[in-house]
């Protein structure tokens, strides 16, 4: 089971599990063990030392057998703690789910009630509840459960809100399900892991609270033993006969420690974010593990950025995903190079590898070189990369809402971007930031600079993203689908802005997209990627006019073009290959209508085809020659 395996990765959690299992087993078999009656007093034998003639752990102030009382007390404390946790979790989760699912006024009223409950110091609240109900173990249980309900309610409500707005809940409504059914069959299964996590981290706490109430004499009543009352009764003899306090105290320590360690392990194993490795902090630069360094090509001396046989892989467990499998690219100053491909083709990973921005682990650059102005960046010291990042090579990402920090104004973020590389005064940097905003044509730049990202529209935010990329007057901008999230009218504005900028400033742009229309309008040259490799490369007009690789040709045919009227669309059958299991030979062979046995044997290389063009196909479309 994957859960147990994940749990066992955490040694401490495993130790907690073993100890806890031992304690639980002992508690369960207590009635079967040959123990003295825990409640029979024998004042003649009081305060006997452990390991003496009166039992393993000796006796307490009334001469009762401590071992027997300890085991029976542990049994009771565990039962009460677990019961309290279950009750608190059930009621709290029910409240949280109802509040989160219905939202609006229901949510508001319920959660304000919960807030009021939370406003009391909870031990006082527990004392008040017991005072009102009268002392007794059952009432202590109720009190402990009640004070923990708000914790569960708040936790579960937050999760429920996000689930209640998921599309599958709408789909369930349209399938004719009522609210109760949706809560039980759609929401609850998705909330249960969170409930388990919350329980595993609080159950130890609840055992402690119950023991606390018993210690004060409000929980279990004599002669019944639980760990708290044992401690309470032993308190007066703490100095003279410490063993009577140490025995229950040690047991509480062991139980709570074991449960907390186990609880942390359970939380880590169940939390999907932690499971996927989010807890392991990525390194500041991608890991490099390469055998040889390809030399800088001479023919592309005028190129400002040149990638040579770049290979980036993701090592996840025992699988190797070859996201980028040997890519050669170059871009000259003032030139716009388009990289086009479907999701999973490796175009973004290629772009991120340039500045060592692929998260490591799991990313590893296993080969190749990236020459920026003749200097190899792969394996360069972090300090070199840091000086170049955002300074001479800048990135623009797809979603500006995700790349801008929500808690700082756009001005602060722009100023920070400038000052990270150039030690200027804040005022100077601010003036510069306003100029930048003006250069990306943001109206009222002087006032907009103090806006927060959420106050701007999508198009305006992307302009800020571009302004940030321009902040240090870079030579190269790598734009990863910068207009995909934008509306067409805004996209047109952003594209024409980028086009002007590169002409005015001589910027080299690497533009990653999946849209042929965008490539056609902006890029001088284009590289088509499939399954981590370039399958075709050349001047945009030549490739779009006469694609040489069957993949390019068929991909272009899939895209409906405006003005064509109603029609049947061409489709490519099948799916792109998964890059941890690439086929022999051409990766496109399985979807290609021209594929022969020769395509599936050996390596297909990228061969030059006419001026400035290259194609990775043994049987390219014939139109190429004619078009040249």
């Amino acid at each position, binding site marked *: 089971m994957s859960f147990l395996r994940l749990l066992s990765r955490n040694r401490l959690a495993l130790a907690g599990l073993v100890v806890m299992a031992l304690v639980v087993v002992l508690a369960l078999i207590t009635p079967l063990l040959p123990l003295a009656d825990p409640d029979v007093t024998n004042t003649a034998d009081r305060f006997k030392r452990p390991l003496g003639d009166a039992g393993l752990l000796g006796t307490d102030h009334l001469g009762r057998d401590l071992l027997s009382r300890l085991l029976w007390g542990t049994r009771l404390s565990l039962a009460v703690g677990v019961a309290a946790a279950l009750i608190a979790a059930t009621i709290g989760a029910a409240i949280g789910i109802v509040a989160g699912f219905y939202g609006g006024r229901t949510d508001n009223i319920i959660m*304000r009630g919960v807030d009021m409950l939370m406003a009391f110091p909870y031990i006082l609240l527990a004392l008040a509840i017991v005072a009102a109900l009268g002392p007794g173990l059952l009432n202590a249980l109720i009190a402990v459960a009640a004070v923990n309900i708000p914790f569960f309610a708040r936790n579960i409500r937050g999760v429920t809100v996000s689930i209640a707005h998921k599309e599958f809940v709408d*789909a369930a409504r349209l399938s004719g399900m009522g609210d109760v059914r949706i809560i039980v069959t759609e929401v609850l299964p998705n909330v249960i892991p969170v409930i388990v996590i919350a329980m595993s981290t609080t159950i130890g706490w609840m055992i402690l609270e119950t023991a606390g109430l018993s210690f004060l004499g409000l929980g279990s009543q004599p002669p019944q033993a639980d760990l708290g009352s044992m401690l309470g009764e032993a308190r007066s003899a703490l100095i003279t006969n410490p063993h009577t306090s140490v025995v229950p105290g040690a047991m509480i320590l062991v139980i709570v420690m074991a449960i907390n360690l186990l609880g942390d392990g359970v939380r880590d194993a169940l939390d999907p974010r932690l499971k996927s490795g989010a807890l392991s902090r990525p390194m500041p630069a991608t890991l490099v593990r390469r055998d040889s360094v390809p030399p800088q090509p001479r023919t592309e001396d005028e190129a400002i950025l040149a990638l040579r046989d770049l290979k980036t892989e993701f090592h996840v467990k025992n699988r190797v995903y070859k996201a980028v499998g040997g890519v050669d690219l170059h871009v000259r100053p003032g030139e716009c190079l388009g990289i086009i491909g479907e999701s999973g083709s490796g175009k973004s990973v290629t772009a991120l590898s340039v500045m060592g921005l692929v998260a490591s682990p799991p990313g590893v650059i296993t080969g190749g070189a990236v020459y920026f102005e003749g200097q190899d960046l792969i394996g360069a010291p972090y300090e070199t990369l840091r000086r170049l990042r955002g300074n001479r090579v800048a990135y623009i990402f797809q979603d500006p809402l995700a790349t801008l920090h929500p808690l700082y104004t756009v001005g602060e973020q722009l100023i920070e971007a400038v000052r990270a590389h150039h030690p200027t005064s804040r005022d100077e940097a601010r003036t510069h930031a306003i100029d930048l905003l003006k250069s990306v044509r943001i109206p009222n730049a002087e006032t907009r600079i103090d806006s927060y990202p959420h106050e701007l529209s999508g198009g305006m935010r992307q302009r800020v993203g571009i302004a940030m990329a321009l902040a240090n007057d870079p030579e190269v901008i790598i734009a990863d689908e910068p207009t995909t999230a934008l509306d067409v009218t805004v996209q047109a504005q952003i594209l024409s802005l980028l*086009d002007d900028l590169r002409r005015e400033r001589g910027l080299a742009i690497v533009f990653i997209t999946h849209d042929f229309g965008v490539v056609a309008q902006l890029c001088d040259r284009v590289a088509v990627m499939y399954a981590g490799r370039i399958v075709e490369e050349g001047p945009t007009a030549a490739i779009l006019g006469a694609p040489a690789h069957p993949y390019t040709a068929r991909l272009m045919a899939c895209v409906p073009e405006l003005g064509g*009227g*109603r029609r049947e669309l061409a489709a490519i059958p099948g799916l792109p290959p998964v890059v941890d299991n690439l086929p022999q030979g051409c990766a496109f062979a399985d979807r290609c209508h021209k594929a022969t046995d020769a395509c599936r044997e050996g390596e297909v290389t990228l061969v030059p085809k006419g001026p400035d063009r290259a194609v990775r196909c043994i049987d390219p479309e014939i139109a190429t020659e004619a078009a040249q």
Partner: protein
Amino acid sequence: MTAALKLSGLSKTFPVGKRLLGPPRAFVRAVQPVSLTVETGETLGIVGESGCGKSTLARMLVGLLEPTTGQIEIEGEPLDNADPATFGRKIQYVFQDPISSLNPRKTIRQIMEAPLRNLHGMDAKARAARIAEIFAAVNLREEFLDRYPHEFSGGQAQRIGIARALAADARILILDEPVSALDVSVQAQVLNLLAGLKAKFDLTYLFISHDLAVVEAVSDRVAVLYFGSVVEVGPAEQIFSNPRHPYTKLLADSAPVVGRALKAPEGRETELPDPLNPPTGCAFLARCPFASDQCTSTPPELVEGETGHSVACHHPI
């Protein structure tokens, strides 16, 4: 022939800045009163940019949102109780994000059975037969039924979403950006599948998208939405090649097309009108090259023109 779907004066207003007690601080009108008719067997495309109200409109049509005003008539019968279960038998919805529209903790079989059991009360045998029939229609293998959603690619998951919508046996499908989360090569597969299903099961589609080329390729008629109102309705082959509303023209000119030079078709500073403070006249006024005094004062009405090409503009092109 009765219209499959008829909307009259349908509008939706959302409260903003809700308080614990008392009325909210303000109201935002997401959809202005919209009147539209969709004929049986037709595909009506709805295009518009983000925030234009197209998803709000779609959610009202399937009963997920209660309209503030107006009426929905499906096959001649009025439906205004905003009960998704009643709507579900007649009109179904295909979601934009195929993966998040499937519950990650249910098998595909459980997902497929829900509408059959709840809407049609079928027994186990009838359900199995119906699922087999639908899966064959959407080219999915039956062995997929016992798997969980995360095991599928976007294209496959979207087929499952379509299969679920078909299972309810509704005659009208609302397709809310059904292919925008998919790669182009897969997008064409799904669009062709939708066209085939429509012919096979005699369906009526409402196809919502921001991608003009896709909408044009699949629709009979297209309605253009701007700021919550329909600004133009016309036959698909005319609306982008021969737009009459300046906004439609702007959209058509903005779409990147191979072989057309890059230009910003409008000033780069323009922004959408503020929904909290809507303009009194035409919502497109600030971006329109033909704006006049009349546009400032009175909002234009949708006026029927020749060959069913209607436009809401005082100065149509």
